[in-house]
């Protein structure tokens, strides 16, 4: 902050951090003592359970429901699996299959000694985590061997609904210089309390996040990367009712980034607040542990609230999300906080306000990569108008040194992009990043000018907001429509029935193992 371009007051900044820490601690307390069906399912996944039954119900669901139906989930699914492993000598996968076949009832087995169960499960889980970590090591080596792109990384969505078509689109993205391909999910996967199984070709507005789809994409992109000597990253969404499960799947398949923000589900998918925040905590822990970069969703607020008025809520949310991520053990270098270029086109001096906001985010979180999103809300069918906005967006991205940028496409206001639209978008990015390569270094902002003043005002308002939330708590703030102009109450919303109060003796091997190495 010492050489802030914006003349920010370090006192205000640390007061914001302090308030955010308080808010995050409150949240931790409020969600403590509870687990959820999806957290438990991700434990089964990280113990090696995969597959689906004849009705396409995933085995992690079969297993967890089985225990839950029998009132045993308060102890954690790991307890029952561990016991069954000891009693039957089978692997978690075999156990799941037996349960599915109706041959085994976990809660009816003899119970081994608690310590023994714990040890067995921890051992099993540690082995799995080690497998995954090993694969991530290889991946890091591959990335280094093939060479890594400098920031801002070009983050590009594909969304055909058909994983095989996504592969084609992703290759076009890679060829045009995309660094990260994010396979957007089929609409409303958020609302499914399970993760579909197998390769899929029938999504709407996106392709289902399934482990098979992840694998197909990963293989295709690894092949492209090897052929072309440039590493292409992959990303997907940990949101909705299966946040932590998708995090585990992504880990298995070597995904490099994950959109990971419970607020999206809470605000826009009406998922219960507590459910969302518990799932998020474990989900982020998993992402954090394996070195996966998480993207938060503040940009979404600007799609429903006015970008000028809502700017302080974005900044406040970044402070909170940053603390919540820390609490889950995600280091700064893996926290890509959300932000967006969303001021309405005719606003006088909008570029100055955008610049102020983008620079503010960079200065507040200098070690976080930031996920900067393109203009979308005010875009329409005039392809040229959108392309012009994208050009200035690209300019602000490079001039403020964002960590990653979701690229804009000319058809933003109409379609999920056609194959060539992303290429046109990437060509724009290339042009601007190169033409304005050192612009950020080159310019200074006038003391007390429009940009400095705007940034200072946004920070000041964010501070007020954070202090208020620290008083009332995050839940109440959400109820008061603080974020994205949407109000949600703590005792309603989807997935609330999946929250389970833990009992004496509950344990979660994933959390235990990951906390050991967690970020201090």
């Amino acid at each position: 902050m010492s050489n802030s371009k914006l003349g920010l007051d370090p006192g205000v900044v640390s007061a914001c951090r302090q308030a955010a820490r308080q808010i995050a601690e409150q949240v931790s307390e409020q969600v403590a003592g509870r687990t959820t069906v999806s957290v438990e399912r991700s434990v089964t996944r990280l113990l090696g359970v995969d597959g689906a039954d004849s009705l396409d119900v995933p085995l992690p669901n079969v297993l967890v429901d089985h225990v839950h139906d029998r009132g045993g989930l308060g102890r954690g699914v790991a307890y029952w699996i561990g016991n069954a492993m000891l009693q039957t000598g089978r692997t978690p996968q075999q156990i799941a299959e037996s349960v599915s076949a109706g041959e085994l009832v976990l809660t009816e087995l003899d119970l081994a000694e608690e310590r023994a169960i714990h040890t067995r499960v921890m051992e099993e889980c540690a082995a799995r985590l080690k497998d995954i970590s090993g694969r991530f090591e290889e991946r890091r080596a591959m990335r280094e061997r093939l060479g890594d792109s400098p920031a801002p990384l070009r983050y590009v969505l594909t969304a055909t609904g058909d994983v095989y078509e996504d592969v084609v689109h992703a290759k076009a993205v890679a060829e045009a210089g995309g660094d990260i391909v994010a396979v957007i999910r089929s609409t409303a996967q958020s609302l499914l309390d399970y993760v579909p199984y197998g390769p899929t070709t029938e999504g709407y507005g996106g392709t289902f996040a399934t482990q098979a789809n992840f694998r197909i994409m990963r293989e295709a992109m690894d092949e492209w990367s090897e052929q072309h000597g440039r590493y292409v990253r992959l990303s997907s969404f940990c949101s909705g009712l299966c946040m932590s499960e998708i995090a585990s799947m992504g880990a298995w398949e070597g995904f490099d980034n994950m959109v990971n923000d419970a607020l999206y589900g809470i605000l826009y998918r009406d998922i219960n607040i507590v459910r969302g925040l518990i799932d998020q905590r474990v989900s982020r822990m998993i992402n954090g542990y394996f070195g996966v970069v998480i993207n938060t969703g503040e940009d979404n607020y600007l799609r429903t609230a006015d970008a000028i008025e809502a700017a302080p809520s974005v900044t406040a949310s970044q402070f909170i999300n940053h603390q919540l991520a820390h609490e889950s053990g995600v280091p700064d270098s893996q926290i890509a906080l959300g932000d967006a270029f969303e001021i309405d086109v005719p606003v006088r001096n909008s570029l100055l306000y955008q610049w102020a906001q983008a620079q503010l985010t960079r200065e507040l979180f200098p070690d976080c990569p930031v996920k900067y999103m393109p203009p979308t809300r005010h875009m329409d069918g005039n392809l040229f108008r959108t392309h012009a906005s994208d050009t200035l967006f690209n300019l602000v991205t490079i001039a403020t040194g964002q960590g990653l940028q979701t690229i804009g496409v000319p058809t933003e206001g109409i379609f999920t992009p056609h194959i060539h639209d992303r290429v046109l978008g990437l060509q724009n990015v290339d042009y601007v990043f190169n033409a304005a390569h050192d612009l950020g270094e080159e310019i200074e902002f006038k003391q007390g000018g429009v940009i400095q003043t705007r940034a200072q005002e946004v920070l000041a308002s964010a501070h007020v907001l954070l202090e208020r939330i620290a008083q009332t708590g995050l839940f109440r703030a959400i109820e008061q429509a603080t974020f994205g102009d949407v109000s949600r109450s703590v005792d309603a919303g989807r997935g609330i029935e999946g929250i389970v109060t833990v009992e004496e003796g509950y344990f979660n091997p994933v959390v235990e193992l990951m906390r050991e190495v967690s970020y201090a």
Partner: protein
Amino acid sequence: MPRSVDLTAVVPYADHLDDGLVQLSFTLPVPYSLAARKAALELAGKMGFEDPEVVHYQQLTDGYTYFVMYGRCVQSIDFTELQGDGFDIEYMSEEEIERFAEEQVGRAIVVVGASTGSDTHSVGIDAMLNLKGYHGHHGLEGYRSFRTYNLGSQVPNSVLVAKAIEVGADAILVSQTVTQQNLHVHNLTELVEMVEAEGRRGEMILACGGPRVSNELAKELGYDAGFSKGTYPHHLATFIVRELASRVAAG
């Protein structure tokens, strides 16, 4: 002397009257090559363009080539027929609508709206129904003559239809934004079928909207009207009160 447009045979205008020039762009799933260029030219020929020309083409990835082209369109349109077609609707203002409704309908008009299916885009339906409205124009909630129910987003068609029947709605209003793979067409069709299955189609006005919904599409799917980008609440309200008034008049 200036030549004047022959409205009975209108063709595209770029630089000169009747030059017919049209810009097009598309991708062909063929490898980047001179043969690809030739394929694009032939395809444009099949679309009926004369003197098609590729002004830019590039490889997207192995086996996919993108083209920007121009061609001369030789088909023409008789615009005089369309003009007469009553397309240029005169919208009433909020005040006019209130007065008209009072005089011609004479009771509260009940409307139920939602963004249906898995669609979570609620901004469109909110723009029509909520007091706040859109770009400084009140939503129907702010009209004396309307009673509104906005069920929000992600509403199953069955829930919407049930609510409409429950409150005796005059109109059902549906918003659809996600259109990839024609999701909106499926959702919109399902709703009409449900209303028909309930035997209520005659009693209710069905209107839909969204960025890629057109009046033509809406009618094709069995709705009374469709509204696209640029719609303000008073456009919708004008349509509803006129339609109701004529139904009232028809008895």
